[in-house]
């Protein structure tokens, strides 16, 4: 199983690819709404991509209120 750090890094890479940003632009503590300038709907699209990548299902309630990559990675990690 990957470590939390590895999962976090993978999430950052996925987000960078999805929103066409240069690698290294995003940091674990970044607020993705603010940093990516996205709304809640675009976040849902990113979540679908993350689910496919990790081959997990993230129920909507699990990501409710999450706005930074680190917490998101923790929620993913708990389901790996």
């Amino acid at each position, binding site marked *: 199983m990957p470590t939390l750090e590895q999962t976090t890094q993978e999430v950052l890479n996925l987000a960078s690819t999805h929103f066409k940003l240069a690698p290294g632009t995003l940091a674990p503590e970044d*607020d993705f*709404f*603010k940093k990516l300038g996205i*709304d*809640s*709907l*675009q976040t*849902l*699209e990113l*979540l*679908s991509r993350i689910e496919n990548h990790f081959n997990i*299902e993230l*129920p*909507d*309630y*699990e990501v*409710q*209120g999450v*706005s930074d990559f680190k917490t998101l990675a923790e929620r993913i990690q708990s389901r790996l």
Partner: protein
Amino acid sequence: MLDLANYSSIGAALKDAMERFAAEVCLIESDREREKQRLTYREFNVRALSLTRAMQDAGFAPGDRASIIMTNQPKWLISAFAIFYSGGVLVPLDYKLTPAEQWQLLQHSKAKILITEYPIWRQLSTAPGRATAPSLQTVLVSEAPPNADLAGAQGWEEFRGSVAPTLVPRERKDLASIVYSSGTGGRPKGCMMTHENYLQQCVALTSLYPFWPGVRYLSILPTNHAIDFMVGFFGPFTCGACVVHLRTLRPEFVREAFMRYKITYVSLVPLVLKNLQKGLQARFAELPTGKRKVFNALVAVNKSLTKSHPRLWLSRRLLKQVHAAFGGELQAIIVGGAFTEPQTLQFFYDLGIPVANGYGLTEAGTAITVNDLKPFRADTVGKPLPGMEVKIVDPASDGVGEVYVRSKTVMSGYLNEPELTAETIVDGWLRTGDLGKFDAQGHLHLSGRKKNMIVTEEGKNIYPEDIEAAFESLPAKEVKEFCVFAANYIWPKRSMLGEQLIIVIHLENNQLLTDQLQQEIIQRNHRLLNYKRIHGLVLHEEDFPRTASLKIKRNELAERLSKLDRDRVILPL
């Protein structure tokens, strides 16, 4: 549909609906590509009555309050039925609020029963606040994993009575629900809605947008919201229609649900509608040149043939693929909760998909005006619904004034706030705080707000006072006082779009806005949910005007700030 004129309460109407439409499907619950359950009115009734009995046995008495904090799902509606059947008062709360906010409203509403889901209860039960809601006696939690610690709650699924319950009659004037239109700050605004309010609103809305057995309504907006409560529960249930719930609201599953369930109606907030528009536009742009030209020509033909009124059968043939993507049986998209840009409305109408655009307030009992599609008008919020009296008060030279409403759908007042109620409902007229005017065809045009609040594209009402708690205890050595405002309240704009909040800060003597302080403000701002965040900062060099009890005189401060140049004084955050 049931003739609601014959009923005096929601519970009585729902009881008869269960008998009248017993064999019809009333609920479908789907999670991703899996259908979890499908209930007929008969099956719904069996589950709901058993819950009702158990609640009555637990001492839930007529007039008692019960809160529901759940995502959109069948148990929400079953629980609401049980509350109304028992003559209780429903307190629907937003599941997206923080636990602290939910506890505050549970305390404010004096709810005796809380009905919620396990993931929500897990957060709520571990957050401080339970001691602040002593009225709460019973907590029912659905979908708890086996052997989970319920922290004093009981399982919803096991909470069943074995004998038939008694329908508790209510009068039309009795309280049916307390709906919070805002208010997680110091002053929650709990709108007290009567049975009359809902019965009247349901008749008015279904006269324009009818439901019937076979109709499938896709419930996406939270059911605690006045719109989904009406068109995703009470409206369809009194007509024998079916409500479809999705447990996962990812765009791809929502798209799939349209096709799989051949959805008839859906309600969306403007933000989602706009995203849908962007997605469709991107797909149209990808068409090869030849196909795109043919498609554009078909849209033009559809546009000219539907000028006077919608012709759904024709639009579905002309633009077959577009309509197929929506399931092929969509009658209309209901959009509400915030102002929608006319070009978005027009985009969908040109494709042959009518958008029921309207205007409403929780205080007014959901909708005040709705577009009747005779003909479709993208530039207005429609005409007053049957039974609604709407007038424009103190119009300026261009005819724009404050919108006042009088109707049997208007709330009876704000819970525990007689003064605020008296300011809001004057001689039977509800002062909306919105600005608008009527045109010659009787359509209402909205053009700004008089009140100090904003409505986001996600349909969230944000009151500046509710945001201020996030900035309390800013370093006292630097910040003498601060106040949050809706920017358009200080500098009125004839627009309902792009509304923003700002924070006005008065620094202590000889203090400058340091990078450190600015970072502190930014950090605190980030802790707020994204739609609640402030967009700019204004530095003010004088003491804020205050009342004898030292409350900030917001109106006076706004008046003072209005003399400044908006574009110059706001520092973006």
